[in-house]
């Protein structure tokens, strides 16, 4: 019976078709504060981006300007407040002081005050865990290279976000990424859960790059709640469309009512690799 079920699922996948459709979007999206940003244990100006929801795919979100944004943490019995300033050239983006550096295992709170409302989010800064860079790319049949994600996407106790920043703009090759340039920034995720919808997703578009490409690999070690946010976000985005889809629902958030998204505190490590022929 189990074998029969597998055959049936396989046949369903074979005979299903997907096509682009017109969709009647709702005109008025809910009023929400959308928060997207993280701080790390690196001393730099960390970014928090505040925007509004959009009603249609591909719309550019309107930034939320003029908010009072602070990062709070405990030091002994005192609460230290670090106010962020809005970037002049990038409305809706709020920056910490360039010397701001998160401390491992500390809890950080993001406080936003805007138009009489106050929003709060808390995350715990996880320690950064070192990683290997051997075998992070592999040669494809066409002679070019593609990313080989070796760090384990599921059942991984070391939850993390991985960014592969690829750059071959210094090379004369006429190979381009699908985005039309000689650069790409690929995001991968290591999560502690095992999600069948993610295991059987229909697949990412492969980005090929030539020998000599510079890869800056960034790893953000994340908390359990950040991993839960990413799991629910992926269930609503990249993992959707397979036979194991979950019920649609809003993503998990660590923000108080009236806001969505996530404020993360992460351990950070990076390494650079040049693709060898």
């Amino acid at each position, binding site marked *: 019976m189990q074998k029969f079920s597998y055959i049936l699922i396989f046949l*369903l996948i074979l*005979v*299903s*078709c*997907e*096509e*682009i*459709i*017109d*969709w009647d979007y*709702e005109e008025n*999206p*809910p009023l*929400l504060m*959308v928060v*997207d940003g993280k701080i790390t244990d690196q001393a730099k100006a960390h970014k928090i981006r505040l*925007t509004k*929801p*959009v*009603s*249609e*795919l591909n*719309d550019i*979100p309107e930034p939320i300007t003029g908010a009072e944004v602070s990062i709070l943490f405990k030091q002994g019995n005192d609460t230290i407040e670090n106010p962020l300033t809005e970037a002049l050239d990038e409305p809706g983006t709020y920056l910490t002081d360039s010397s701001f550096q998160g401390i491992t295992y500390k809890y950080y709170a993001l406080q936003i005050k805007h138009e009489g409302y106050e929003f709060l989010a808390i995350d715990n800064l996880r320690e950064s865990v070192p990683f290997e860079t051997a075998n992070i790319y592999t040669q494809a049949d066409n002679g070019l290279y593609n990313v080989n994600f070796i760090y384990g996407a599921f*059942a991984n106790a070391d939850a993390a976000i991985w*960014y592969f920043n690829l750059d071959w703009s210094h090379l004369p090759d006429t190979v381009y*990424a*699908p*985005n039309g*340039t000689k*650069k*790409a*920034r*690929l*995001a*991968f995720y290591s999560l502690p*859960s095992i999600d*069948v919808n993610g295991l059987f*997703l*229909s*697949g*990412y*578009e492969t*980005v090929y790059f030539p020998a000599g490409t510079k890869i800056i690999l960034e790893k953000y070690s994340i908390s359990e709640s950040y991993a839960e946010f990413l799991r*629910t*976000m992926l*269930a*609503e*985005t*990249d993992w*959707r*469309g397979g036979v194991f889809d*979950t*019920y*649609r*629902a*809003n*993503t998990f958030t660590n923000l108080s009512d009236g806001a*969505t998204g*996530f404020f993360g505190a992460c351990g950070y490590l990076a390494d650079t690799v040049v693709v060898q022929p």
Partner: protein
Amino acid sequence: MKNLVDYRDHASLFLNPQIESELRFGKGRAYGLEISLRKETGKLTGMMGYSLSKTEKQILDVNSNRVYPANYDRPHEFSVFLSYNISRHWRLSTNWTYATGNPTTAPSGFVLIEGKYVPIYNERNNSRFPDYHRLDISATVGSDPAKNKRFQHQLTMGIYNLYGRKNPISINFNKIEDSNGNLNISNDQLDMREIFPTQTYLFNVVPTLTYNFKF
């Protein structure tokens, strides 16, 4: 209906040692009426049925504890089946099915996080797929069923979904179209190509062949 069981939003089920924590409990109700007509004599036989129904659920912690249509709620369902005996060996049949589209949760907007357009929802099952309908036809040739033979056999040739109705099973908001016209997911955060809503459907026009042997 009492003691209905459902999963919490985005339940984590696979190899979860505390799977019971993913369950939520509640109640539901289903009501409606059903009418059917049959003609069982003569060369032309058939059956026609219609049902009007409503099925709702209310589960703690799901849909902010509000009542929502069950996934299998189809207020109108209609089907007609006709069979015509051309001779003692040949029979033609047709079947047409119609039903209100299944409930689905449609986004009320999108938020841009981590370079992805993430849908946001107001309510569970607040929308419906397009109405489901399809027409099947078949021709059957075989032994005369009136003759009480020890061995009987039949060969049925048919077409499932004759007019190629595309009945969607899911609608998604995450695909880009690559240079070959294939629909893909991009995980490149520098990719500014347009993202399209897409629908997935099963079975276009499908020819069928069935052989029955009775002994």
